């Protein structure tokens, strides 16, 4: 059974309280939220198995800090969708604005459209799959996890990158400081294959290039000052 929460009649606080309580109950319930009207902070802080479908577009920080829950946005998402996500699956049927998946620690963020600038900024273990293109400065200071882009990447991809893996099928406008193209080894093909399957993406791992950190900026060296 699916419970419907209509945001023309239900305040954000009540929506989130209801969802958070259901998540905590670990009952794997299903919810449908109608008329979201771009509300901010929807379905954030969920901590348990729960299915939430949002019938429309959302504002900032939808599904922020998600744990275990499955959240689907049947529209586009505003800035910071699934920020600091810990686990679970967040799917955006449309496009995602800036900072999608920022600082995420785990789980899968699946963006069916495009993602704007700074997608995956400071990501710490999350997997992000973008079926379209991503904007500039994506994966800035990205620490762990995987960013998969089926389309093109904007300027300064992976600037000041740590250990996150970046896979791009299309063109990369430019690479950021200390980000280089790396060899695609069999283990990377395996990782990518699994992620593409999970995200339902129609692409072959062999079509992608891998980018990672050159690790030249890991310890400060004055001879690298021009890189900063």
């Amino acid at each position, binding site marked *: 059974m699916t419970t419907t929460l209509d945001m023309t009649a239900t305040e954000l606080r009540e929506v989130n309280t209801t969802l958070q309580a259901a998540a905590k109950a670990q009952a794997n319930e299903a919810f449908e939220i109608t008329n979201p009207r771009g509300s901010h902070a929807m379905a954030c802080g969920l901590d348990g198995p729960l299915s939430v479908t949002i019938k429309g577009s959302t504002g900032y*920080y939808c599904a922020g*800090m998600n744990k275990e829950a499955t959240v689907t946005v049947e529209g586009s998402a505003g800035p910071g969708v699934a920020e600091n996500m810990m686990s679970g699956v967040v799917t955006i049927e449309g496009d995602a604005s800036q*900072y999608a998946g920022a600082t995420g620690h785990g789980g899968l963020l699946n963006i069916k459209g495009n993602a704007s600038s700074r997608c995956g900024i400071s990501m710490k273990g999350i997997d992000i799959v973008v079926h379209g293109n991503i904007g500039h400065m994506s994966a800035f200071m990205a620490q762990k996890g995987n960013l998969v882009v089926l389309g093109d990447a904007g300027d300064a991809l992976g600037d000041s990158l740590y250990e996150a893996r970046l896979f791009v099928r299309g063109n990369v406008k430019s690479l950021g400081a200390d980000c280089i193209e790396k060899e695609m080894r069999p283990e990377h093909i395996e990782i990518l294959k699994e992620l593409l399957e999970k995200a339902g993406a129609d692409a072959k791992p062999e079509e992608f290039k891998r980018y990672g950190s050159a690790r030249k900026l890991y310890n*400060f060296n004055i001879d690298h000052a021009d890189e900063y």
Partner: protein
Amino acid sequence: MDKTPQTDPRQSWTFSNSINSEIRRAADTGIYDIRGGGAKRRVPHFDDLLFLGASMSRYPLEGYREKCDTSVTLGTRFAKKPIELKIPVTIAGMSFGALSGPAKEALGRGATMAGTSTTTGDGGMTEEERGHSEKLVYQYLPSRYGMNPDDLRRADAIEIVVGQGAKPGGGGMLLGQKITERVAGMRDLPVGIDQRSACRHPDWTGPDDLEIKILEIREITNWEKPIYIKVGGARPYYDVALACKAGADVIVLDGMQGGTAATQDVFIEHVGQPTLACIRPAVQALQDLGLHREVQLVVSGGIRTGADVAKALALGADAVAIGTAALVALGDNDPKWESEYNKLGTTTGAYDDWHEGRDPAGITTQDAELMKRLDPEVAGRKLRNYLNVLTLECQTLARACGHNHVHNLEPEDLCALTMEAAAMAQVPLAGTNWYPGKPGF
């Protein structure tokens, strides 16, 4: 033959020995100086203010007999569960990573015994500090190292760090020697690399976005936790006004004497305003918005004595926070380690290479052997004692001015010893009824 008289050798004020040594250091290394602590230069400070005390026009309270309350409640604006503190002195945010686990434990123990809060830092919340801190403020920093919803919910308050007094507009760098396996694990980074703490948040820019970020944090924590916003002493009037607009319950204002674990010396000494200069504009902003006392103001940066506490409160703060002084109370820069400071090329009182992880006192280190030098129970009791002394001194001054609560201290209780302090604190120069910039003069 008589010797021709000579003038004494004359050192240049512009090119002092200290300046020349920095030039030589820069020439040798090719890198700027990085250090811990806050501004070391002399700036107008609380020492430049005096309390007037009671006389014909003020009625003092009896010391040791008449009550002078010191309690403070933080987070009354929106939070369901404001923080109740017994004393108006809190422990400022300092990270596990910059500090050892035992040092964080000692801070928690001392603060809890004294009835106040302590604060996490970059690098997340450790069990040592959560377990030993009855009231723990969880910092929400640009790096988001270790950030997770579970710790967010088990915090007693959340402090969104926009800036700090030692480096308004700057981030940090924890050098590789302090990135041990445990520190690296908490920060999701490889062991041994220099770890950059970002200077701005990854998912919001400006107060309009921050307002929405605060909404999200409140939604995640059921609107229970007070939300602090910490700013460095840059543009205090506007920073405080915008923090209020963004929805802060509490504003932490950190002047340039406030410490850091590691930043460029040029940043520490040349960016930001002295603490004394920040308080009145901040209070003015709160008063202009009708939010003074509804949004609490916590002032930090160079608080050392109960007199400093009392003066900050008299200028309009609700509480203060201490960082460097708390470390000194635990044992930082203690003369008993003089020979070891000498080996590091420094001396007691001047040791500030906290980022190198070789602290003889075992406080600003991740070295397992050095850490053992700090007994968290003993150090915690020292901090408790120090906090109690700060409180007693503050009460003493408040009673002398006739106040039965330290929050009743007011600017009219003060005068200034210098023109600069008079202008910054907007209290009269001693012996006059005037301060620079006073309307009507």
